[in-house]
């Protein structure tokens, strides 16, 4: 996530209220964006309805089915496609026989919750720090700038592993993941906000507000925040998939959610050795992760270009520009 720290945000200034309709009008003409939005929506609905769907299939994400795996062959599921059947729509987990469909759904809950929660926290901290740096004096700006630099330079995953390893066991894991990812990953947002603030604060309407006697906080709230909404929302759309991957990495490294709670990262971690013996087991969490990250990236990019007509004409696909820098 630190790779996207210098993302040039689209030039702000469009009043946020008018932007919504304008964005929708532009998005409507982009099928990729619409499909992505539909996929994400479906995923959120499925995740939210996980207990209902589990009841529908009659499966429990934690129940073992010893008879569905071939004990003599390392515990690989009986039958083709990872043991898929009328009862177990996407097959069962090797070694335990737990139903993969409901585990995938319950896993989506953790993955999405952590990703969205962490993104919200990152944006919040990034806004506050960025505004303070942009509006503050030389010393404040310098100090916050260095703090941001240090955070960018720190290997986030290593730090996150260390932090999650020392926290007491009874602290709720999803909340811990949100806090760790959120508190370590706000540097990119704060840099963008600071850069935008520096541009914005010299614009006429901001100067006018200052001359009319409004204080720094009021100026920030009334004049700057609405203008910052567009670039920040865009950046958030890029942060969500990044955070899904970070959660997956942490769970993959064994410091994410505690078993038997499923998460996509935890599923990937146990599935990694099975990629040849039982490909279905690996493809399910990997495919879900891929689709989710792709959909939110495409959607985020579409929102970004929709917000910025000039950029829209030059840059149509992907986040290649950000990562290249």
């Amino acid at each position, binding site marked *: 996530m630190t790779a996207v720290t210098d993302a040039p945000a689209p030039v702000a200034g469009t009043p946020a209220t008018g932007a919504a309709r304008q964005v929708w009008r532009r998005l409507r003409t982009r099928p990729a964006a619409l499909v992505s939005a539909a996929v994400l929506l479906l995923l959120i609905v499925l995740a939210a309805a996980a207990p209902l769907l589990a009841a529908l299939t009659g499966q429990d994400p934690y129940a073992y089915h*010893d008879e569905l795996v071939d*004990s003599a062959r390392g*515990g*690989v599921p009986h039958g083709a496609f990872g043991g898929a059947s009328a009862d177990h729509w996407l097959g069962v987990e090797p*070694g335990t026989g737990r139903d993969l469909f409901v585990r995938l759904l319950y896993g989506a809950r953790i993955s999405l919750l952590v990703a969205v929660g962490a993104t919200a926290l990152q944006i919040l901290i990034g806004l506050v720090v960025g505004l303070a740096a942009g509006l503050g004096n030389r010393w404040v700006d310098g100090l916050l700038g260095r703090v941001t630099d240090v955070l960018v330079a720190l290997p986030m995953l290593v730090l996150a592993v260390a932090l999650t390893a020392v926290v007491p*066991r009874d602290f709720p894991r999803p909340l811990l993941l949100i806090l760790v990812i959120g508190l370590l990953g706000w540097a990119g947002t704060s840099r963008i906000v600071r850069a935008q603030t520096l541009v914005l604060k010299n614009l006429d309407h901001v100067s006018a507000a200052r001359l009319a006697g409004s204080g720094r906080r009021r100026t920030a709230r009334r004049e700057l925040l609405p203008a910052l909404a567009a670039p920040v929302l865009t950046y958030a759309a890029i942060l969500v998939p990044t955070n899904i991957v970070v959660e997956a990495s942490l769970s993959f490294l064994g410091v994410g959610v505690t*078993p038997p709670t499923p998460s996509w990262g935890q599923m990937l971690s146990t599935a990694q*050795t099975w990629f040849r013996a039982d490909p279905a087991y690996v493809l399910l969490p990997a495919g879900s992760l891929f689709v989710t990250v792709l959909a939110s990236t495409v959607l985020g990019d579409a929102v970004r270009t929709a917000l910025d007509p000039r950029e829209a004409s030059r840059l149509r696909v992907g986040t290649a520009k950000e990562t290249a820098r």
Partner: protein
Amino acid sequence: MRPSSALSRRLAVAATGLVLTTGVAACAGPQGAGDEAGSGTGADAAPRKGGTLTVLNSEAQSDFDPARLYTSGGGNVPSLVFRTLTTRNREAGAAGTEVVPDLATDTGRPNKDATEWTYTLKDGLKFEDGTPITSADVKYGIERSFAAELSGGAPYLRDWLIGGDTYQGPYKDPKGLASIVTPDPKTIVFKLRKPEGEFPFVATQTQFAPVPKAKDAGAAYEEHPVSSGPYKVVENENDGERLVLERNEHWDPKTDDERKAYPDRIDVRSGLDEAVVNQRLATSAGADSAAVTTDTNLGPAELAQIGSDKELAARVGTGRFGFTNYIAFNPKVKPFDNPKVRQAISHAVNRTSVVNAAGGSALAEAATTFLPEKEAFGHQPYDHFPAGKTGDPEKAKQLLKEAGFPDGLKVTLLHSTAQNRATSPEIATAVQEALAKAGITVELDGQEPNSFNEKRWSVKDAPGFFLSRWGADWPAGSAFLAPIFDGRQIVANGSNYNHAQLDDPAVNREIDEINKLTDLKAAAPRWGALDRKIGEQALDVPLFHPVYKRLVGKDVKNVVISDWTGVLDISQVAVR
């Protein structure tokens, strides 16, 4: 007297993870006990001398010094270079659990109460430089292992030899250890502070290899240890990451009944990923066709993949090392002080789920006894609290009710986060799921391996309920039962393996009585009976004994897997 904490810790590391830490381990061959036929292209041809044997390993052969190696029976690669007073019988199956003479003419002559052991060296023994091996060299080799800078070996000698607890090694104390006597260049006598009928097993460890005092370079000796075995070290890079062995011309096969030494050259390459080791052995391309591994087992997914491939399946060797994975109770912690609670958990465990989590029936065998199911350990079958194949939650509920928990119970299970399929989350969740059916809610406490071990080995901080495991330093009852159930081996300020903190005078007395026996065949059934008796107290729930499966390259012949190590014996392997 107790082993110091550092040493005891080593003991458990080695005992529990023996195959990885010591290089005892080896490889595989055609399946089946007693089957030592070659496989691959020249299956029918008798093994011949010559060629280079490659060893593909994940762990480096670090600290290649006989004083520092912690081995069971002298190790695998180490035993090619270091001969010891006695060694393990290099035969497949149960015959391989016997201890046989190596440098000595017999396995040791005890006095009446097994406190004094006398050995005589064979004639014609020479070091790699041609100088004869004397009993003084053996004595010096043992004394070195007491030096602090050469620590790492098993703690037994420090505990058993008179004065062993205070001796500082020959560098600080050149007078030597008075309890090892060498009346002449051929004879060596050990004086112990208590009876130890299993002393010949300890004499197989590399500390009993001769070291010429003139060639001793202290901690640097490991770079070029002087060989007494069929091979000598010609190259040692990166602390054992690459080890090249070539023939020792002064080794006389007439003095050595155990090592076959077919290949001319042994090339040990380590630092490889375990998946890479197995993949290279399966592919068997180029030099890998004459390759084995001494530390990498096949995992469940690899086994599932091999399943349908007959050619590959024929190259998988199967073995059983004396090892038990179990749930440990600490009755000092409530509610595990109540025997009914412990019994309820014993009844509720679903060993089918646990075995599947451990890699399936090919890699694990359900266990109801603490002793491994081998004659050498004196194994006696028992199942005091039957759980059937998949657990008996009804019986468990009834016991809980009697114990005063009619509405179930909430407990915490400590396990490690290591991906070892032994104390790992998979096993813990299988236990959790089975106990849930009996109304016992299990919370999992997964800790990274170091803090997991610190907790479970601590008398003060050990929780009431945790996963543990124990491996034998040699295939006999005392190595298995004494550290776990002898009340005098509770280590208050160090690594304690008596998890139940059992200090039962009757048990202690019986352990002492059996240790006096020098007839191991007579001792074995008594260990089995003791295990059965202790089992009635439900101080642990035996879960499973692991099974080792390993691949060999397609040109590898004469694969011998004993019940002592459970893995291929590298001294028997031929590549032509």
